[in-house]
């Protein structure tokens, strides 16, 4: 009984935090840095994704593009945009953002969106390969593991395997 009660309470808290975070974004007051980090983690991110609507696309695009926002905030916005990748405006937006110089944290999220477009050109895929180059693998490899929900131990493991077997 206690367990069920606890789970119910957590559910309410997560839902509240997600709604509050999104409302803050709509009001133009982004959450604090620590909270931004937390929003990118599961299960809280799942609740945020549930709370977002198509009307939020514009504000999410503004946040993701702006260097005024911290990286976790921009990543959060891009991750929320993923559910709208089928929309033409989001598609055009992601393609344009890809062409702008940006950090790997942002670039990886943009890439995730672009990979949904099966009709993307060979040139784009060649560019993707160029951006994730061997010289900077220490920057992007841990981010890939994180994106796939791997923990710190898996980051070390993947790095070790890439070095040992694939000459990274």
């Amino acid at each position, binding site marked *: 009984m206690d367990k069920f009660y606890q789970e119910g309470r957590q559910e309410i808290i997560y839902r509240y935090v997600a709604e509050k975070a999104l409302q803050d974004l709509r009001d133009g007051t982004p959450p604090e840095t620590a909270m931004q980090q937390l929003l990118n983690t599961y299960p809280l991110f799942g609740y945020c994704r549930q709370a977002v609507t198509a009307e939020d696309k514009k504000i999410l695009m503004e946040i993701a593009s702006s260097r005024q926002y911290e990286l976790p905030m921009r990543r959060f916005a891009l991750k929320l945009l993923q559910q709208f990748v089928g929309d033409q405006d989001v598609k055009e937006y992601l393609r344009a953002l890809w062409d702008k110089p940006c950090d790997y944290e942002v670039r990886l999220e943009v890439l995730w969106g672009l990979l949904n477009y099966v009709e993307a050109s060979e040139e784009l895929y060649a560019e993707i390969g160029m951006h994730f180059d061997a010289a900077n693998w220490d920057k992007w490899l841990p981010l890939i593991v994180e994106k796939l929900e*791997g923990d710190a131990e898996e980051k070390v493991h993947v790095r070790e395997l890439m070095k040992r077997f694939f000459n990274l």
Partner: protein
Amino acid sequence: MKKDKLINFSATVPDIPSLPVVATRILQIIASGNSSLEDLKKVISMDQAFSSRLLKVANSPYYRASHTVSDISYAITRIGFTTVQALVFAISLRDLRRSSNKTDVALWEHSLAVSVASGLIARDLGLIPSGEAFIFGLLHDIGKVVINLSMRKEFAEVIRIVQQEKVPFVEAENRILGFDHGDMGKYVAQQWNLPDDMVFAIANHHEPDIMTEVDSADLKRKTLIIKAADALCASLEIGLSHGMVLSAQEWQFVKLGSAKRRDALLAIIQDEYQSYRSFITGQPSRRT
């Protein structure tokens, strides 16, 4: 049966890159957000580069496992799903930068077709598990892939001889290189700690004396399934193979003694191969 040749293959076996089209497909599947073990296994199982890479990792002493694996599902389980996803994603990004030529594509198509054909022969005839036959077929010409990667010029000459003189690959390879893709395949498969039966089939799928020289029925079955699949795909002109011949006794052993039965199987191979190929390339099926 193949005898060990005194050839110094001391150079490190190069990493075998996948074709950009395969790398692209893998990236798309992982980024789709709902990639399951089955999706990932399906695409990896159709590509000799990714299959061999995962088997190499899973069978390495790094994992301290007591037995070698030839099954991609086992390899993924041993390495871990998240780790495999991250590895293949990172490697695919690198493979996007590598260029491929017509020979690379032809070798990939042939390996896929032989893989499909091996699986079908094994499934229909109940000789060995079809999944096992599938991976044996996929990697049967890994020696050719490595030769093509490390000796591009010489391999181009081998292909020229095969096409102009209509001779089997092994003959042209022995003439130009002093060894053939069975020798190289055996070396590579041993370097990667692949299971012994797989090493044997890779080394011996062109040998003419399997029926008389091999005692183990299991080895005989596995090697002759690959040989038969290779011959059927060569007759469909998928890839670069030429001049594959099986004796009546060998066809009989894989229960394909009747020409009618072989013809029926050819039609199925062609259809299944095209459907697998389309899954990877995203292009509609086409007759080769």
